Structure formats: structure tokens, C-alpha cells
């Protein structure tokens, strides 16, 4: 070991000599400093070298005042709120190329406040660059962006013709009621499928959805195909044609027709159809409509799912619909078989003695029928069903079935509860549908309200249907003091309700869904 050197013990036993850096003089100004690759003090370096030389100090950015979005050349528009990270990203991309060319790297950027109406955005960048034998210098550099106003393409198109649509989906169901559309409306709200529609208009026996692009319309049609049995056909119409660049602008029409069979419809199957479905009794009840129809034979408790395509082979119509339901009172019920569950719904075969409510006090007409509602009905209950005994039907298949088989006189469909006009704890949202004022017939408004009420009552009965849509808490609900002891009217439990979002002077309620 040489004299004068201080030994330092390394942890591993290796001899690591201590090395304190000495000081040198800055070669320009002579101030004592730690040695660095340039051997100049920081001030001399900064005075000598300006790393922000050549970095742009001004740049321009284009802004659409309507939709507050910024242009990203060549063609995309990005939404950004003032002084947001998205805006910073857009601005930094504008000056990225010159920075990269100068081999200057960005180590930080922040906004400097500027008045919003000044049309200037100011950024303070922190730039880093290597100079002179590997020294990295960092320097701040302000950049000012001039904001130019220009309407983006979609806003200018909307401004020019606000009703301009490119594609329309014409949804139709040729049935006299609008229950399906009420249900579909709730489904569309839940899945947000109608958010892209420019307009929704009501048409006789259907709805029209207008869209700004064909792909949005196709998206709605695809969604409808999964929730309802539909048949689609498309058409297009040439609007304009650019000969130079061979661009053709069309208007597209999607004609969507929903199968006319609804829930609670009574159908008489033809011999062919009955045979094809495995001998399903000539009378079937439709219990569920998704993208296939579920047909229940109430006498054998067999459910058959019929797809849209198969349905088109037979094209049968409903013999009796829910408008023709008649109220019965159950006199006696005798369970015949144990309760079974098909597709999540419960059925039980039972013999019931019923009488029409209109007949009840007046005469002795009693019907003994087999019903699938054995699990629900008790003596003394009211039920709704189809009166085949007294019905006058205009259906070929029904006539054939009547001659060949002995059909039951009554087909019970559902249990009915006392009608109680009261406010509900929950409410539904509606789609903003434009009503066609010219098409209003007398009494139609009342009919619509009745249908809506019936729909809400159906919702209360069926938890599975409730599951598919959003129910919101009704603030106007006041729980009634009337005693509900012994009352088995089904109500919607509060756990399924969503808090509605109200934007007002007080703070917002965030939607909470507690399951």
C-alpha cells in the first residue's frame, strides 16, 4: 500500500479505495466546481449553449366550438376540455416532430393559465438535450398555441341540415296493441342502443329510428335480432353521386318486421305444425318471446321453442289475444302433478272448477278445466283466461282443431289481482318518441294509457322481465297507510330499484344499484 492513500473496506472484503472527487476550475469563468464532461460550470454552459434553439415557440391548433373538439390532422377530431390531459396530448403531438428532429427530448410539460376567450393556449415545456461530450442539459421553454375556430365535419353537416339522416330502421309489428314496443323501448334504454339515433318517430303499428350512418342502424338491427323474432329486409336509395371520385351517397332503409305472436296469445296449430313440433296439442299458449317463441301446451306442460325462420314456414296467427281475456273466479282446485320448472318458470298441472265472473251470481255455468297454473291458484282467486266456450272465432286452424279434437272450454292464462289504482314505488324512463300528430284517432290516447298501465302491471308480476330492464326509484311515492296485511299483490322489492340521476341545483345522486 502506498503512503498517503486511505484504505476503505468493501463489504465483500475487496479493497475499494475511497475516491472523493476533487474540484477543478471552470475553464471559462474560473469558478471552482465538480468536474463534468465539459469542465464548464453550469452557467457558462447555459450561456454558451441554448438547447431550445430551433424549437418552435408558436404553433396553431384548430378547434370546433360546437362540439369542443380539436383537430388532429389530417381528419380526426378529438374531444378535449380545457386544461385536460387529452388537450395536452393533442398539443404535444403538434410539436413532436420538430422536437424529435432536433434530438431534444421532453421531460415535462404543464399548462400556463390563459383566458379562455383569448384563443391562446400556453404550455411550459421542459426540454432535455445532450450537448458537448455527453452532458445533458435541461431548460424550460414556453410555447404558445393560437386556436383557430372551424366547424368540424359532423357539426357542419348537422348545421346545414339538422334532420339529415342516412339510414332508417322501420320497426313494425302487425298487431293491434303496442305492448311489444313498450317492452322493446325499455330494452333499448337499458342497453343504450337508441342513443345514436338522430330521431325516433312513431308510425302506425311501429317505430322509426333515424340514424346518421348505416353502421349505427345495422347495430340496432343486430341488437333487435337478439331480443325479438324479426325478419329484416334492406333497401337503399341513391341520393348523390360524385363522378370524379366515384363516391356514391345513399339512404339506407332497414325494414324490420317482428313476428305477430305475442305473450299470452292463444294459438291453434295446424295438423302439420302440430306434427312437426312433436305432437304439441292443437291449442298452445305463447309464454315467452325472445328471439324465439316459446309455445306451451297447457294440457301436457310441454314447451317448444320456435325460431323465426321455422315460424315463417307456418305463419300462423294468434287465435285469441290478451285483449280477449275474460275474468274467471276459481271455485275449486285440485293439484294433479307436482310443480315443475321449465325455462325458469314454474308450472303445475291441476284441475280447476271455474266460473265466469259475469256468470257468478247469475247462473250456474261452471267449467271444469285442466290448467297449468296449479301452483298459483287457490279457491276464491280470480284468474284471467280465454273463453273458448263462448268465443266466436275466425280461424281455420281453430275450426279444424275443434272438429278433430275436443278442446277445453276455458284456457286459464294468469292470475288476476285486485286493481288498485295507486302510485308505485318505481317508475320507468321513456324514449323520446315523436308522435305523428296527423295519425291520432279518437280515444287512442286513452287506449295507450291503458296499455301502459297493463304493461306496468305485467312488470310487477314477472321478475324475469324486470331483470331485463332498469327500474328507477319514484320520488313521488308515498307509502300508503292502508293496511296490506294478508295482501299478496306482488310488488317490486326496493333492492331492484336504481336511484335516478337528477341534475339540478343540489348535488347529483349517483346511480347506485344494490343487488
Amino acid at each position, binding site marked *: 500500500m*502506498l*503512503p*498517503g*492513500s*486511505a484504505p476503505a473496506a468493501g463489504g465483500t472484503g475487496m479493497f475499494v*479505495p*475511497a*475516491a*472523493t*472527487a*476533487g*474540484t*477543478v*476550475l*471552470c*475553464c*471559462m*469563468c*474560473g469558478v*471552482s466546481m465538480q*468536474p463534468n464532461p*465539459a*469542465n*464548464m460550470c453550469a452557467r457558462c454552459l447555459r450561456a454558451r449553449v441554448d438547447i431550445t434553439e430551433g424549437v418552435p415557440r408558436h404553433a396553431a391548433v384548430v378547434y370546433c366550438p360546437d362540439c369542443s373538439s380539436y383537430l388532429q390532422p389530417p381528419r380526426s377530431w378529438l374531444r378535449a376540455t380545457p386544461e385536460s390531459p387529452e388537450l395536452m396530448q393533442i398539443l404535444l403531438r403538434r410539436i413532436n416532430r420538430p422536437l424529435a428532429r432536433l434530438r431534444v427530448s421532453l421531460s415535462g410539460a404543464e399548462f400556463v393559465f390563459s383566458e379562455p376567450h383569448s384563443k391562446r393556449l400556453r404550455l411550459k415545456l421542459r426540454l432535455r438535450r445532450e450537448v*458537448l461530450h455527453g452532458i445533458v442539459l435541461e431548460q424550460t421553454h414556453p410555447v404558445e398555441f393560437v386556436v383557430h375556430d372551424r366547424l368540424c365535419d359532423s357539426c357542419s353537416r348537422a348545421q346545414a341540415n339538422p334532420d339529415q339522416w342516412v339510414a332508417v330502421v322501420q320497426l313494425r309489428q302487425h298487431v293491434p296493441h303496442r305492448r311489444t314496443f313498450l317492452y322493446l323501448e325499455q330494452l333499448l334504454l337499458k342497453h343504450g342502443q337508441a342513443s345514436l339515433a338522430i330521431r325516433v318517430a312513431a308510425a302506425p303499428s311501429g317505430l322509426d329510428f333515424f340514424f346518421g350512418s348505416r353502421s349505427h342502424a345495422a347495430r340496432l338491427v343486430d341488437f333487435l335480432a337478439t331480443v325479438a323474432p324479426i325478419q329484416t329486409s334492406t333497401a337503399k336509395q341513391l341520393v348523390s353521386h360524385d363522378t370524379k371520385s366515384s363516391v356514391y351517397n345513399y339512404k339506407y332503409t332497414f325494414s324490420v318486421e317482428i313476428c305477430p305472436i305475442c305473450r299470452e296469445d292463444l294459438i291453434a296449430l295446424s295438423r302439420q305444425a302440430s306434427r312437426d313440433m312433436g305432437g304439441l296439442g292443437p291449442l298452445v299458449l305463447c309464454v315467452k318471446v325472445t328471439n324465439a317463441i316459446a309455445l306451451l301446451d297447457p294440457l301436457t306442460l310441454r314447451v317448444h321453442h320456435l325460431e323465426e325462420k321455422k315460424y315463417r314456414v307456418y305463419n300462423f296467427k294468434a287465435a285469441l289475444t290478451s285483449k280477449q281475456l275474460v275474468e274467471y273466479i276459481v271455485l275449486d282446485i285440485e293439484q294433479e302433478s307436482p310443480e315443475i320448472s321449465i325455462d325458469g318458470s314454474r308450472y303445475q298441472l291441476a284441475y280447476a272448477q271455474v266460473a265466469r265472473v259475469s256468470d257468478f251470481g247469475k247462473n250456474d255455468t261452471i267449467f271444469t278445466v285442466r290448467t297449468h297454473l296449479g301452483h298459483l291458484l287457490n279457491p276464491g282467486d280470480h284468474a284471467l283466461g280465454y273463453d273458448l266456450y263462448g268465443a266466436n272465432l275466425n280461424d281455420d286452424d281453430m275450426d279444424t282443431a275443434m272438429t278433430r279434437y275436443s278442446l277445453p272450454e276455458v284456457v286459464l292464462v294468469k292470475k288476476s289481482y285486485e286493481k288498485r289504482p295507486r302510485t308505485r314505488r318505481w317508475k320507468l324512463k321513456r324514449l323520446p318518441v315523436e308522435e305523428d300528430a296527423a295519425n291520432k284517432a279518437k280515444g287512442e290516447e286513452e287506449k295507450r294509457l291503458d296499455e301502459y298501465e297493463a304493461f306496468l302491471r305485467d312488470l310487477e308480476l314477472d321478475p324475469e322481465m324486470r331483470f331485463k330492464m332498469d327500474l328507477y326509484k319514484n320520488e313521488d311515492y308515498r307509502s300508503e297507510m292502508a293496511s296490506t296485511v294478508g295482501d299478496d299483490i306482488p310488488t317490486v322489492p326496493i333492492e331492484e330499484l336504481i336511484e335516478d340521476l337528477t341534475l339540478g341545483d343540489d348535488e347529483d345522486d349517483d346511480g347506485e344499484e344494490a343487488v
Partner: protein
Amino acid sequence: MATRKFRFYFLRVIFLVASFVPRRLTLSGIQFENNCEVGVFSKLTNAYCLVAIGGSENFYSAFEAELADAIPVVKTSIGGTRIIGRLCVGNKNGLLLPHTTTDQELQHMRNCLPDQVVVQRIDERLSALGNCISCNDHVALTHPDLDKETEEFIADVLGVEVFRQTIAGNILVGSYCAFSNRGGLVHPHTSVEDLDELSTLLQVPLVAGTVNRGSEVIAAGMTVNDWTAFCGSDTTATELSVIESVFKLREGQPTAIVEDMRKSLIDSYV
């Protein structure tokens, strides 16, 4: 006899006066063909000076103007190249040349240099002797990987004590330090402990500094002997003052700057 004696005394006085006349640092405008690396193209010792053959005579004239009356200034090349400062090493006792030196060059140098200087060509794998070895008249620092025989040659021909060392972690000691019998300048990143150690070995004051506006390659940027130093034209005033003070080139007038410099100098005389 009296006149002879008087003349002798007179001459002696002149000689003494001549040796103590404070020699100023050479002007900071020296360049070899627009290149500030003076130490690459020249070799300066106490007994002689070697200069590369350049296109113009400015470089040679600069040396001649300063040194002609004291020591011979020899124009030469080594192995046909002009980077003679980095290829050869020498002091007042001898000169070592790499194996690439041609016979004519060797003979030319033997002829031009004074007789007491032993000119020797050695066979060494590391042929850039100027980069590998740095010496004054008493001590030499060498590259750690130098051959044993070369080390012996150095000890014999140059008459010095040889130490294998590194400077600031660099093995090319000949490039990163320049020292004379009176002081030395080393690589700026040399730590304080290393400076201590080297100073003890060399027995001269050392300082860490730069030359040619922050260049760390000291020996390439300047060349020095006991009374003169030549620096590249890029050398800043600060660097010049550091060099002046550590090599003790400006005697008799300690200026305020020199006082400040002393704080950063390490004086360790035995």
C-alpha cells in the same frame, strides 16, 4: 587571465540570469494546421524539442522563436507520420522511439540531437509510447500493461524511476497527464486521494485541470518543460493561469490569482 576570468564570470552571470529570467507562458495562439492539439505534433524536453513537419512553417517558427537560443528544435516525422508527440517519449537523458520509426528518421534524430541524449528504438507492442508513458527527468509513469523489457529500457535510457499507474481510471497515462520537474497537470476527474498518491510518487505539485477549453486530454493539448509551455489556441484564460501557476512559469510575482490557485494546489514536497 583576469579578462578571461572576468569573461567567464560575465558569462556565468548571463547564464544564471538567463536561467532565472522569468520565462512568460507562450502565447495562446498556437495551432498546427488549424488544430489546437499541440502536444500531438510536438515533443518538448529540457534538452531538445521535436516538431512535426507541417504544411506551413508557422508551428515551427513559434517553437523556434521561443527556444532556438537554448535548445535545438528538430523537425522530424516518426514512421512517416506527423503525430510524433504521441509516438515517442523522452527527457534530457534520452529519447525512446517505437518500432515503426524508419532508419532514416532514427539517423536524422541521432544527428540533430545533442550527444548526451541517447536515442533508442524499442520493440514494444504498445507502439504509441507518448500515450503510454509520461516522464520528467526523474520519474516516469507508465501504462500498466507495458512489457518488462520496455520498463527496463525506460529506466536505462531515460534514467528515471518507473511506476505503473492509472490516472482517473484511465490506463493511458501519457495522454491524461503532463508534468515537468516543477509541477504537473492531470485529468480533471482525478480524485483527491489519487492526486495525493501521484504527487507523492512524482514529488511535484499536481493539480487537476483542463486545457483547450475543457478538453481532458492534457498531454495532447499542451507540451511543457521546466521553463516553457505551449498550449493550443482554444485554451481559456482560466486554464492558462492554472498552467502558469502549477508549472511555476511566472516567478517572482505572485498575483492575486495565484494566491487563489494555491488553495486548489497540492504541495507535497518531501
